[in-house]
Structures are given as structure tokens and as C-alpha cells.
């Protein structure tokens, strides 16, 4: 399929700007920019994607190659917003990392293909695998070498979690925040399980990404989310029992945050 436009799509332009060495292609080399443009002009319907990916021969290999290029684009786009996390990598290494993510996403998609229910565009469904794998990779690279158990890296939080001088805020707000924190601190120290307390500390106070916590605890996102949810439920109940509800905090804190 030929690209009908003489100007590259916006995504390709972003891609080109960031990966300036990715334009030409010689036989046997990696896919180049032209291939990406071609893949973007490929408007298969959901049914055509499923038909081609499930077929054999050239139509299948073309569909897989088009899908791989779309996933590579999604992985590179994901990495564009994560350059701080990938600062130790060269552009070439980031490109390789993106290709690895695209390949992993492709394998996962082909495995999960029977689960595609057609309730979204096929490519939107496929992109989420590449975005998920890309973001998880970037977060783990950023936190590689840091131990969540190291007290020098992660000191136990002090009694008051706010960094700013509360006197610069409205006195009523400062009192309210202080009271809320005292309620929460008591629950965190006395009512949460050790695992809930640890996960809450890492993710809320230390800004550790969930994927890093998942890796550290050798578990999965659902389990960590459940720990946090149960902790939040206890904290919410404690606030409500003190008469601190959504309307009270909205009145005081307004719409900020």
C-alpha cells in the first residue's frame, strides 16, 4: 500500500525528529522511516486485521510486519515521555529497547488475539500492550540498582509529611491538614498491616512506581493495588468517622490538586 500523503504524519515527524538516523533502509537492515509511513497508511478494518493475522503466507507476514511497525511507533512514543528515566541510554540503545518492547508486545498480542472482542479499534487495542511494556521497562530502568529496603535510599518518613512551611498557608487550612494527618498517621501506625504500610510508604510518600514495587515484592499489579485499596478504605473510614468528608475537604482545599 502506498502512502498517499507527501507530508509525513505528525507521529512520524516526532519519530524522525528524535531518531534522525532511522530514515534509510538497506536490504536486511532494520525497518526504516519509509516503512513506518507505509504502515501508517495501512487502514485495515478490525476484520481485516484478524483475517490477515490469522491467514498464512504473504498476507500474514505483511500484517505482522505492519503490526510490528505500529508497535514500534507506540513504544518509541512512550519512551519520548520517559527520557529522564532512560537518560543513561544512547538514542541507538533506546531504539533497540523500543524494538525489544515492540517484539514482546507482538508476541503477547498474537497470544491474546482470540480475546480481542472488537469493542475498540484493533490498533488501539494493540497499542496498549506496547505502552504497558514500554512504561514498565522505563520505570524499572530508572529504579534499577536502588533497593527499597535500603534505609539510606528510603528513610522512614517523619511525623509530619509536608515539606512546606504551613505558616504561609491559611491558618484554618493548616489546622485542617494537621488534624487530618494526625488521624491518618494513627491509622497508618496502628491499623494497617505491615505490607499495607510498606506499600503505602513506597508509593505515596516515596513516589516509587507500582511496577517497581511489584518487582520488589515479586507479585503483580492487582495484588499491590488491592493492598493500597484496602489501606485507603481504612483511612477513608477513619476520616469519615471524624466528620471529615468529601464536601468538607472540597470546601477547604478547593479544586487544587
Amino acid at each position, binding site marked *: 500500500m502506498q502512502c498517499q500523503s507527501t507530508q509525513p504524519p*505528525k507521529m512520524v515527524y516526532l519519530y524522525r525528529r528524535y531518531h534522525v538516523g532511522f530514515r534509510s533502509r538497506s536490504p536486511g537492515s532494520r525497518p526504516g522511516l519509509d516503512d513506518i509511513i507505509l504502515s501508517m497508511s495501512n487502514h485495515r478494518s478490525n476484520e481485516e486485521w484478524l483475517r490477515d493475522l490469522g491467514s498464512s503466507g504473504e498476507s500474514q507476514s505483511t500484517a505482522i510486519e505492519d503490526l510490528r511497525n505500529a508497535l514500534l511507533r507506540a513504544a518509541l512514543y512512550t519512551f519520548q515521555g520517559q527520557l529522564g528515566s532512560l537518560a543513561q541510554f544512547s538514542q541507538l540503545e533506546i531504539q533497540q529497547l523500543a524494538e525489544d518492547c515492540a517484539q514482546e508486545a507482538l508476541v503477547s498480542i498474537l497470544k491474546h488475539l482470540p480475546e480481542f472482542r472488537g469493542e475498540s479499534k484493533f490498533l488501539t487495542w494493540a*497499542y496498549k500492550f506496547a505502552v504497558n511494556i514500554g512504561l514498565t521497562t522505563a520505570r524499572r530502568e530508572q529504579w534499577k540498582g536502588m533497593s527499597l529496603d535500603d534505609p539510606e535510599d528510603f528513610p522512614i518518613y517523619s511525623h509530619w509529611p509536608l515539606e512546606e512551611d504551613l505558616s504561609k498557608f491559611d491558618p484554618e487550612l493548616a489546622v485542617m491538614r494537621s488534624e487530618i494527618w494526625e488521624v491518618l498517621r494513627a491509622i497508618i501506625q496502628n491499623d494497617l498491616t505491615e505490607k499495607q504500610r510498606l506499600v503505602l510508604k513506597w508509593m505515596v510518600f516515596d513516589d516509587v512506581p507500582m511496577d517497581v514495587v511489584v518487582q520488589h515484592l515479586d507479585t503483580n499489579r492487582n495484588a499491590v493495588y488491592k493492598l493500597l485499596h484496602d489501606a485507603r478504605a481504612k*483511612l477513608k473510614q477513619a476520616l469519615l468517622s471524624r466528620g471529615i468528608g468529601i464536601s468538607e475537604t472540597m470546601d477547604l482545599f478547593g479544586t487544587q490538586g
Partner: protein
Amino acid sequence: MKTSKFDAWIKRILATEDEEISCSDCFDLLSEYVDMEITHGPVRENHLKVEQHLIQCQVCREEYEILHSLAQMDAEEVVSPQDE
């Protein structure tokens, strides 16, 4: 912790529901939710559960934001570099 972050955390605590969908459920529904937003399709009960999860879960929210951008760009298709 910055005061604004503390306030946002309190709001998330108070927005906690007894039943919330898991990250896996959110992942399963995310592409459908994103396309619904882009095409202004009908909002279903599952979509509200996704919205609630995205308020609480930062990693899923980040995935949603990138996926939404990608799908939006696909929907808009060709945009010239001069338009940036």
C-alpha cells in the same frame, strides 16, 4: 510531600469505593474506553469503573494518557510538521 500532593491524596482516599476494578480489568477495558472518548461514543457502566480506577492508579493513568494520545493521532491521521 508537597501540600498540593497531600491534598490530592486526601481526595483520593475519600474517593475510595468499596468495589474497585483491578489493574488487569482496567487494562482489558482501556482501549474500549479510549476509543469511546475519542469517538464520543456512549458511556457504559464499565467505563465509569475505568474512570474511577484511573483516579486511583497512577501507572494505569499514565498508560491511559499515552494510549489516548496515540489513538487520537491515528484518528486525526495526517498532520503536517508545519502545524506543530
